[in-house]
């Protein structure tokens, strides 16, 4: 089957389908950073996509973790960092294992 465009250009159906498919490619995974400062996760709530990478960076004097049922950065010393590739099951709260008043949230799209 051939499709004739308004410009007069002719496209075979498979080519047209490939063109349309290219318009709906999934966005490339992103890397998002959570800064740990003043004993808080900043931003406290982070909106990410499944497949994105979250990097936690500790700027505090004291060690911290980012801990949830599905991930655990382990102890991060000052200037330490750790990364985690987000899955849909990571949606929800996490906290520092050393400082239970420190809490963050991942909203997974």
């Amino acid at each position, binding site marked *: 089957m051939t499709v004739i465009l308004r410009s007069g250009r002719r496209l075979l159906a498979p080519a047209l389908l490939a063109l349309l498919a290219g318009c709906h490619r999934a966005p490339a995974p992103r890397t998002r950073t959570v800064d740990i400062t003043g*004993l*808080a996760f900043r931003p406290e709530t982070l909106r990410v996509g499944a497949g994105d990478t979250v990097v936690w960076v500790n700027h505090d*004097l*004291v060690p911290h973790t980012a801990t949830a049922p599905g991930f655990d950065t382990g102890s991060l010393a*000052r200037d330490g960092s750790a990364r985690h590739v987000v899955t849909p099951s990571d949606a929800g709260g996490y906290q520092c294992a*050393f*400082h239970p*008043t420190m809490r963050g949230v991942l909203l997974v799209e």
Partner: protein
Amino acid sequence: MHRRSLSLAVLLVAGATALPAQQQPAQQPPDLTDPEVAHVAVTANTIDVEAARFAQGRTTNAQVRQFARTMITDHTAVNQQAAALAQRLGVTPADNAVSRSLQSGAAEAHRAQQNLRGDAFDRAYMDREVAYHQAVLDAIDHVLVPTTENADLKQLLQDVRPAIAAHLAHAQQLRASLGNATR
């Protein structure tokens, strides 16, 4: 002279001991030297590490043990930073009345806890930690930061403050969960 200016500092930290809290009129910021400030910072951290080590060996409560572990981790980390800074600045920590007051308060608290077990120990330890961290926070705000001259030392104290505030909040939550002792 330092004598009058240290009295406020001593009374602020003495509030964490068995001594009764006293009302004080507003005063000028006390005049501790930077070496004295460094000594107070190291002393305050060391005291809480030692109290936490004792608590780890005595408590059977998992949350109290976790709190004590955090005190050891955090106050050790802060002391490492303070020691590194003092070395970099060529500052030798100098003993002073505030440090001595902290130490006598700690000794008194240890004597009070030594013969306690179970829930009674947990409540006594957490009561002490609440009062101690409140006193340290007050000392940072009203004594140490105002009196410190060196910008890096002042920044270290300001950087430590959120950790002390978080310790206080954690201690208050944990203490509340332990309930009241029956007499």
